[in-house]
């Protein structure tokens, strides 16, 4: 034990994997859980809702209005209010993040489906596609880029928002911030910020990669425009 505070690297070394729940690796896992679950849930819920909004146009106004309101709600009070229903658990963080995600993804799904040019839809009909087949083989694939763009926003903001959960004891890496505040010490803050930003960038990168793999017809647009 040297005298004086440890360097950031020493601090990381000491806390990375202590096998205890407050080790950095453990917080990282928690953080991932609490951010990935909402991302996936939001997508799973937004797809059918978005489809419904496209199918029944009158649904879209109220839905998007509601989602706009949801999006405007600050996370902390929402976490706090949810405690009375779901307790001091990860669920309390996951539910609002899911809603924030949906607030972004439902319009993305709707925009994505609306981005299918009418003439493309018409020719699909004219060639004898049944409605389900048209949805699966024509409309959804064409909507993918717009939906993925929404996913990128959702992934990045979910990952950073989880840390606010630290204020109710469920913040993943956000726990490093509260700890560092109680015992004023910079390295945990830096590590927390860097890891969260890095996670966000990795998630973003993966989604960009997914976009490239899923939509070669968009990528090619930039590449070989002849």
């Amino acid at each position, binding site marked *: 034990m040297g005298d004086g505070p440890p360097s950031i690297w020493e601090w990381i070394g000491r806390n990375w994997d202590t096998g205890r729940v407050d080790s950095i690796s453990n917080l990282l896992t928690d953080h991932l859980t609490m951010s990935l679950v909402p991302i996936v849930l939001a997508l799973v819920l937004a797809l059918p809702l978005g489809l419904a909004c496209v199918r029944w146009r009158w649904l879209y106004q109220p839905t998007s209005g509601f989602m706009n309101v949801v999006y405007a709600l600050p996370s902390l009070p929402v976490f706090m209010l949810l405690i009375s229903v779901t307790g001091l658990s990860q669920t309390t963080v996951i539910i609002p993040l899911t809603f924030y995600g949906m607030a972004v993804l439902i319009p993305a799904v709707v925009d994505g489906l609306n981005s299918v040019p009418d003439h493309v839809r018409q020719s699909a009909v004219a060639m*004898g596609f049944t409605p389900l087949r048209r949805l699966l083989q024509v409309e959804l694939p064409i909507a993918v880029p717009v939906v993925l763009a929404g996913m990128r926003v959702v992934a990045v903001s979910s990952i950073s928002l989880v840390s606010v959960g630290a204020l109710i004891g469920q913040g993943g890496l956000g726990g490093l911030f509260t700890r560092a505040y109680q015992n004023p010490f910079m390295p945990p803050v830096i590590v927390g910020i860097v890891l969260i930003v890095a996670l966000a960038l990795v998630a973003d990168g993966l989604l960009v990669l997914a976009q490239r793999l899923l939509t070669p*017809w968009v990528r090619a647009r930039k590449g070989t425009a002849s």
Partner: protein
Amino acid sequence: MITFDSVTKRYPDGTVAVDHLSLEAPTGEITVFVGPSGCGKTTSLRMINRMIDASEGRILLDGEPVQNIDPPTLRRGIGYVIQQAGLFPHRKIVDNVATVPYLLGWDRKKARARAMELLERVGLDPAFAGRYPFQLSGGQQQRVGVARALAADPPVLLMDEPFSAVDPIVRTSLQDELLRLQSELNKTIVFVTHDIDEAIKLGDRVAVLRVGGKLAQLADPKTLLSEPADDFVREFLGHDRGIRRLQFVSTEGLRLRTDLTVTEDAGDSGDGAAEPWLLVVTGDGRPVGWRSGARPAGLEPYGTYVHGRDSMRAALDAALLSPSGCAVAVDGDGKVVGVATREALDAALAEAADG
């Protein structure tokens, strides 16, 4: 044959888009629907493949009412080509073309082979097969659209203003392409356009519709130009009706004079000195210009047409380009085959106006 039997379409908002339309589009011919915007062309066309269902009346496909056929099945047997081509942006060209074969359950290999064959048929380089639609120009996309519609070899082809989004030059070549294809394939084609020139160029029969979805006239193009049924049709046909009608008059019957040419190098051959105008040609028979006894200074401009291939319209135009008043008839290689004098043209025109 496609038969419209007193077909009416009333939209839910009360608009009557098509009003008791009865007509026939004969097998193996191109029937063009033409008319001003909103006259119900698209509606009529789409009732054939049941993209829209008629409110009253029946549409028969070779005698069978389309109402009795399940729409997807019906549509897979009818090619459909629209403006903007409607290509699937997320599929490669070859897969776009093979769409209907895939739907019909053909195996992948066979469907692709068919697609490749069709790409060639519509004049596209096989190298395009692996591209995505956005990598093609508008005209190329339109060709793919035609190939796609033909993929499953449907007997019927519906085309809704397919060429109206491309520029005039490409458009002309697409029209020529379509005529060439049709001469090979003999499909039953219903073609919608609001451009009367296109209608006249492509149609075996032209149906002029007026707003409200009523049939104003159904006739072959020449008849249409010479005998418009009423003022609406006359106005719709626009100016130059007389001149345009010449398009359907062949130059084959035009009497040519071959005694009005002199070869360049032959110097001042006094041969035809009695003629006021002589056509100077090169040694290998290409036109150089008109020489007039009255104006020895230089050569006057000339106009040419390809004899037998070009129409009387081209011959007249050629004549009007020259102060000699004569049109120079050339063959496919541009060599002079004779001269159509004003008298010869007059005679041919009189005959044309008469017929």
